């Protein structure tokens, strides 16, 4: 039976994460901590074999991939980029002007359907993620280095776009592993936000 296992991995910490700056598709750099996080991920991935490795073409994801899976052939794909926040990107909340604040609140009130100028709605992001997913092989194990938004978009897709309200959300820490299985007839959410490699004093680890 066809079974595809997907390990979707978020990038390490960036300057924008650190400064709480709206990031989206702005091409920010990993911080020293982000680099260290990616290196801690490496031994966990080394124990697995992947039939293919993909990454968002944004530097923070690509560099995380190179550090976590040294030597691997990495296929870059723009469809794995973070959701675009358009004109709001690269600003902190405090730096938004009055018009941008209005835009921000307008989008926030219906994030699934509304996009900022030059940006994407969550529905746009889900469709983009699904387009990438549809072209994957139907079997094997794949690693993809991407963004927190991609994890949410994939989960929203698996949940049949059902949770359009935002009374719940999922967390995706930097360098967390999120595992999914796609079978011919059904989809499984295996694990979300597994970042056990970042735990302090993890004496239980082999």
């Amino acid at each position, binding site marked *: 039976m066809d079974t595809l296992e997907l390990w979707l991995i978020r990038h390490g910490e960036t300057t924008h994460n650190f400064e709480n700056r709206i990031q989206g598709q702005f091409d920010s750099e990993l911080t020293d901590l982000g680099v260290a996080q990616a290196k801690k991920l490496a031994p966990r991935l080394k124990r697995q074999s992947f039939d293919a490795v993909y990454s968002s073409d944004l530097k923070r994801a690509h560099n995380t991939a190179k550090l976590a899976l040294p030597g691997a052939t990495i296929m870059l794909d723009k469809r794995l980029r973070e959701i675009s926040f358009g004109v709001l990107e690269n600003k902190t909340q405090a730096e938004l002007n009055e018009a941008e604040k209005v835009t921000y609140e307008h989008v926030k009130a219906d994030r699934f359907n509304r996009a900022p100028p030059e940006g994407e709605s969550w529905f746009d992001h889900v469709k983009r993620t699904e387009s990438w997913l549809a072209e994957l092989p139907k079997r094997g194990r794949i690693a993809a280095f991407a963004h927190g938004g991609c994890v949410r978009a994939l989960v929203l897709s698996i*949940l049949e776009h*059902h949770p359009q309200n*935002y*009374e719940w959300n999922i967390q995706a820490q930097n360098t967390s592993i999120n595992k999914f299985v796609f079978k011919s*007839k059904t989809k499984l959410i*295996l*694990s979300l*936000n597994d970042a056990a490699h970042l735990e302090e004093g993890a004496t*239980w680890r*082999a």
Partner: protein
Amino acid sequence: MENMLELWLVRHGETDWNRRGLIQGDSDIPLNGLGIRQAQALEKRIGDEVFDAVYASDLLRAQKTAQITFPEADIIFDARLREINLGDFEGRVWADIPEGERSQIAVWLMGPYDQKVPGGESSDDLQVRVSSWLKSLPEKGRVIAFAHGGTIAAILQVFTGRPQPRGWDEPGGWGFRLKNTSISKLHMSETFTSLEVVNDAVHLEMIED
């Protein structure tokens, strides 16, 4: 700041019925040797964590997993955390169930969700049971509960919703899979819930099978 409850959900360790692929439901099957070692690995990982309360299903496998992980704790046993009752199917091997009967159990698996397995519970029954338990929790603090794969998935689906009901053998649908002694974490407030972690069982990597 709104009140926030941090809820950890842990599945029990392995039983002989898990190992043999028998449908377990609320049959009271104890941990096997590997299940005990899994619980010991969990204890090494999280035994020092401090919780305001420790809950467990009153079935033996969940009780024992909780006791190995937190030997000093006053554990609150609650039948609402039991695995779903799968009635006449319990103790049978899924692969051995004839096609006709399988489509019968599929009705329960795929909806409509008010359909009960013969002699057992419906998915709706399980949702009501776990929702009642969630409502009984304190509004804030840090608590942990030892329960079952079906129960934990049902708790997660209180927030994510369940798959759209579909016909037997039709594609579609999705689910959670929770490993023995896996940890899932929720942050819950009155208006918002965050699924912080689902099915982290990295501590199993240190165990010899």
